[in-house]
């Protein structure tokens, strides 16, 4: 039995790390050791690579990793969504087959939820999975899929019954991405990046064993995956920082980070790069223009207020208080900040806002802000969806009337084309 006091956990983690950490191991070797010891994912069950620690004690272990300089398991990326989903709803076969290689990072995962025809309405998925002989045969089209072209496995939400209401006719599968019926095509954005793929599923196959939870439980399993999505996005940003040290393991992790974060390289520009505003205003001398100074000030008031609101929410959370309304406003506030920042960057650029690439300011970074910020109010839940959530869940206002929840899905009006 593990002793679950903070001191005991700290001592044990510290002892193990000091005995085993060696920056000259390979990344996979080290992660394998973490999996075997349970220190990589200490809040996971003991039988599945963990130590059954309460979540509240995980930061203690993380502190020891940091103190000793050992690389932890990155808590980010789709593969961790897969792990959380498999731990909660998968079979032992799934856990056996997938969890270790999720920890070692040897398998890349992707998420096949969104479709061209459904947008914000994930539960409106129309990709069909039909049992033919002894296999599920899948046909349809998914979109906004990060890393689909590199993925070994996909988390698939597909419709298995058109006669049931929308939320009841969905099931959840793990699909092998390395098969003939799966084609990933890069989806180019207006900012010239292609961070996502469209995935065409044409008679793709899934063995019955790879179904997660019961038939028709797809929506509730998907909800588990989505719950972890925001958290994973946060730690993705944190993960970007590999220590600037020499050693095989650092080189390998830097390489992994680089590959994993490549699709997200424009995200800072999407957020409006408020960090550049004061610098640029001083460089260009625009700070001396009282009109632009007011516009910068308005942006700063918004930006700082949003930042402090997030800190307020975290502080309350750390005190163990129930979540106040301030915790639900971040996404909406950040899309307002991004829009305002793009406006101010345009004022700072003046005529040069017409140029991009190497002719553009800051080697094209400013131009990239100007064609990336619209994503801030769409991706990860549009502003409209955020306001629906805030009004319904935080303010307890009436829900939108549903026109699609109770009737057979086949009778629900939907988009004919993607």
């Amino acid at each position, binding site marked *: 039995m593990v002793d679950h006091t903070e001191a005991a956990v700290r001592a044990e983690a510290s002892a193990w790390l000091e005995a085993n950490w060696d920056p000259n191991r390979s990344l996979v070797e080290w992660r394998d050791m973490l999996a075997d010891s349970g220190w990589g994912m200490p809040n996971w069950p003991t039988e599945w690579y963990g130590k059954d620690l309460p979540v509240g004690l995980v930061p203690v272990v993380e502190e020891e990793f940091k103190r000793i300089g050992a690389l932890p398991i990155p808590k980010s990326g789709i593969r961790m969504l897969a792990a959380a989903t498999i731990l909660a709803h998968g079979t032992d076969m799934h856990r056996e087959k997938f969890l270790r290689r999720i920890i070692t990072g040897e398998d890349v995962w992707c998420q096949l939820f969104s479709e061209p025809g459904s947008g914000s309405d994930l539960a409106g998925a129309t990709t069909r999975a039909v049992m033919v002989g002894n296999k599920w045969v899948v046909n349809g089209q998914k979109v906004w899929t990060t890393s689909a072209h590199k993925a070994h496995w996909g988390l698939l939400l597909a419709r298995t019954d058109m006669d049931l209401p929308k939320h009841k006719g969905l099931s959840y599968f793990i699909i092998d991405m390395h098969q003939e019926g799966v084609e990933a095509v890069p989806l180019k954005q207006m900012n010239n990046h292609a961070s996502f793929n469209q995935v065409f599923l044409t008679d793709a196959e899934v063995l019955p064993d790879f179904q997660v939870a019961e038939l028709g439980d797809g929506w509730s399993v998907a909800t588990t995956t989505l719950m972890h999505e925001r958290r994973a996005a946060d730690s993705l940003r944190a993960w970007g920082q590999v220590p600037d040290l020499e050693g095989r393991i650092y080189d390998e992790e830097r390489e992994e980070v680089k590959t994993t974060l490549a699709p997200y390289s424009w995200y800072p520009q999407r957020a409006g790069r408020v960090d550049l505003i*004061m610098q640029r205003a001083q460089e260009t001398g625009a*700070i001396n223009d*009282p009109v632009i*100074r*007011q516009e*910068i*000030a*308005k942006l*700063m*008031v*918004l930006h*700082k*207020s*949003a930042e*402090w*609101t997030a*800190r*307020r929410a975290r*502080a*309350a959370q*750390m*005190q163990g*208080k129930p979540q106040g*309304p*301030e915790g639900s*406003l971040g996404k*909406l*506030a950040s899309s*307002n900040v991004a829009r305002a920042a793009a406006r101010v960057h345009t004022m700072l650029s003046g005529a040069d806002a017409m140029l991009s690439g190497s002719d553009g300011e800051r080697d094209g970074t400013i131009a990239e802000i100007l064609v990336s910020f619209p994503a801030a109010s769409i991706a990860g839940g549009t502003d*409209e969806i*955020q*306001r*629906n959530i*805030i*009004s*319904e869940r*935080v*303010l307890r*206002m*009436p829900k*939108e*009337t549903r026109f699609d929840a109770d009737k057979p899905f086949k009778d629900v009006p939907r988009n004919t084309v993607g």
Partner: protein
Amino acid sequence: MKFSFTDEQDEFRTVLRRFLEDRSPSTEVRRLMATAEGWERDRWSEINAELELTAVAIPEAYGGHGFGASEQCIVLEEMGRALLCAPYFSSTVLAAGAILNAGTEEQKQALLPKIASGETVATLAFTEGNGRWDNAGVEMVATKSGSGFTLAGSKNLVLDGHTADLIVVLARAPGSSGDQGLSLFTVTGDAAGLERTGLTTVDETRKLARLDFTNVAAELLGEEGEAAGPMATTLTRAAICLANEMVGGADRLREDALEYVQMRMQFGRSIASFQVTKHKAADMLADVELAKSAAYYAAAALDEGDDDIVSVASLAKAAASEAYMQTAIHAVQMHGGIGFTWDNDTHLWFKRAKSSEVFLGDANHHREVMMLNWAE
């Protein structure tokens, strides 16, 4: 930076909120705002006796409880919420602030305990006919006369100026300008040569006065010619206090409007069920909560001696100015025609929002102060 209220602070707020809901319902606000004075000494003494609000932020050495800006801002947020008609801001924030920052030890001992107990109601007279909130705008002249000084000129927009017992006055040496030559003085409300005229205000719950000084004998407060620094410090704190008062009012308006649309039916359904109403309510929440964060942060920053406090104070005031007024406009709109009537309470807070928007400087002014003082 500390950024969350302690359990004690939360408890204080809860008690205070209930207390003010009980003692300052809108019927009482309406009764008092219709009087020339805007508050009643007996009524205010009774309220103050129970929670000793005037003592909260005055140091223990001068008869107060010695709490920080965060606690004082809780008081102000709740007063702003209840629209309490009382000379709290004038006496405790402005006058006591100036005395604390500028007065000699002897003067603090003499003046502050009575302000802390509520026995003395004081105010600070600094703005003049030009409506400027900064030191450089002061034109009133203080002339040496024997061992003392005499004041001549006018002060405008003095909060509770016609009812205060003690008036702290900012004036300058003849021929001086800018931050130079400024001194603070005290005069009693009934001083000879002082004419006090209550002004007609948009916001009837915030009474202002014009004070005309005809050679009024005044006592120097602190060092002669050294008032610029203490005044600036006083006004920085005042801006933070006002921002907190304002977010309290804004949140009340927001909640009342939400309650109204939740209860009100139109076209056979709750108004709250219309998507545009829902989205407006969400935006209102964001406006108010973001402004609250800035106000809370500023109070905490003051308590922690943050170097950027001048910028942070102005940021909080600018945020509160925009958020309160925007919330007030939305709140009227959500009520529809009813929200435009006298009998509905929305206009009481709407007018406070308008008055607060410009009191101690409007959002443009504070954004400019913020940018010019930003250390980054």
